[in-house]
């Protein structure tokens, strides 16, 4: 749990830094998304970082666009 708390803090900082960078570079869609959905994105990011890094790709078409 302690590890998760550290990870959450780290992810929060990363998202805030990213939101600022998106804004500074004029990428407003992404900046607004991160700002408006900060809590949800933190949850998504924490879960993603806790997952083992094995390939679990969606369909190749979907993946090719990401």
């Amino acid at each position, binding site marked *: 749990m302690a590890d998760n708390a550290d990870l959450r803090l780290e*992810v929060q900082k990363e998202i805030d830094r990213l939101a600022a960078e998106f804004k500074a570079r004029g990428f407003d*869609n992404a900046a607004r998304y991160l700002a408006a959905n900060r809590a949800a994105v933190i949850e998504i990011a924490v879960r993603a970082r806790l997952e083992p890094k094995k390939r679990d790709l969606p369909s190749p078409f979907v993946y090719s666009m990401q």
Partner: protein
Amino acid sequence: MRVLGLSFGFHDSAAALLIDGRIVAAGQEERFTRIKHDADFPRRAIEFCLKKAGIAITDVDRVVYYENALKKFDRIVWASNVREQQKSNGGLMGRARALWNAATNANDVPPYLRSVTHSWFKWEKFDVVGRISDELAVPREKVTYVDHHDSHLAAAFYTSPFDHAAIVTMDGVGEYETAVIAVGRGSEIERKLAISLPHSIGLFYSAFTAFLGFEVNEGEYKVMGMAAFGQPRYYDHVRKLVTLRDDGGFEIDQSCFEFLAPETLPYTEEFLRRFGEPREPEADFAVQRSDLPEDLSDAQAASILNNSRHYADLAASVQLCTEELVLHLAAKASAIAGTRNVCLAGGVALNSLANGRLIREGGYNLFVHPAAGDAGNAIGAAASYYHRAAKRPRMQGFTSPYLGSPLDTTEVEAAVAESGFDAVTTCSSDEELADHVAGLLAGGAVIGWVQGQAEWGPRALGARSILADATNPAMKRIVNERVKFRELFRPFAPAVTAEAASQYFDFEPNLAAGAPEYYMLAVHPVRADKKSLVPAITHADGSARVQIVTSDSNPTFHALLRAFERRKGVPMLMNTSFNLRGEPMVDSARDAIRTFSVSGIDYLVLGRTVVSSRVEL
């Protein structure tokens, strides 16, 4: 100046090293890891490039990534927003869902965006500069990036032989852009027109690829192969989906496609209403009863034949429409640039049928970057930085596609000794090798041929090839069933001496450096009076994807073709990539022996060493 270009994170990771305007090495990660389309960080490819140049990573002045990750994520959010807006405007259920979400603040991140966000955090795609800096232990200041289509533009133009050319890039999607028209002069590239998502030729073709039961980013070649068996009976239906604009641009009717935020399939219910049921992956395909098992009932056979005809006709229609799109873009680009020199890159530039028409009907002097897809952007990123940011003089154009791993003679000896194959012949010269192997080929053998440095790009060009007799009508089936284990409808390509090419194929070979036929990137008709002479490489519609070989471009391979001509009267061989179905091309001697030992290849040639799979009595 030493610039390392990198492409990774999506598909076909690669690295390329540019030193003082010369491409010293370039390699695709899949060749080293043996994972087809490996998208991971290209550690092994980087190691190879540095080793080839004899330098350390600390000697590299700049590392350049091939696209703008943050801009790409901005596009993903934009596309998701547009799609959600469309849904909420699109009927009672959509509006109800939007109202519910607004009222409850539930599901505020749509599923597609949630999935992408998850993937980007998991694979650390946001901070690419940091990732590269960490992986390579280089300061962040040494790492930079260029836009996706700027990488394609640079790969297309700076590696071409032209000082002045029109440039067209076409792919699925980069950040926002899907196609760009530009003009190249010397060290400058000036953009003239950009097409952005959702209008995309690459995604248009890929949607039909998926519908026809093939894997996207892999099966597009199969659509081209299947098209030869059909008639463009559905052309009008497919063509209706595309609007060609006077400015050179185009639009794709979005009612049939899901290009903005695809959660699963790239096509819609409307698409299915127009084109019917999608083809099952791996479904039987046959255009004549004799291609099907004899024990099949007449009803079953009729069903397969009817379905096959339907899907082949659709493939032919999509292919024809795509060719028109490519011709349209090239014509506009050429007019804008005021030159017939045209450079192409982006995955769509691997559509060799379209390339053939550009050469024959368009009359263009065409250059196609051999690794036209995203792997080629490793070179493109390095070249773009070198010219546009570092302002260096024009780099040396492409002189050879053999930029990959060299065949290590020490490894050959060790690998052959370890393999247990004891029927080994070693030739003392290239002439002796050519004569010996030509004799085996003329006798009906299938040969695994590994020489020199591996090819850059998806085509085997006589460095990591499987070769066979092009005059043997049974050879297509033999190689397909015994070696490649792939669909029988897929054609095999010829390698022919440049001096004889126009005798067999209906085009005038351009022997200038960089002609697409050196890289097997254009399809041309086999001359009517020659089709029966070379049945193994003549496709169902009488065409072939030609590779021309000169004594300069590949002396050993050229000598083999000439030696084969002395035996069979035809300076041409069937040439297909040395790999099994679903695997990347072999790279090292050990890879080659592994593939050789599990396939029906008769002889393996590693440099001047010939290994036989047959028990010699």
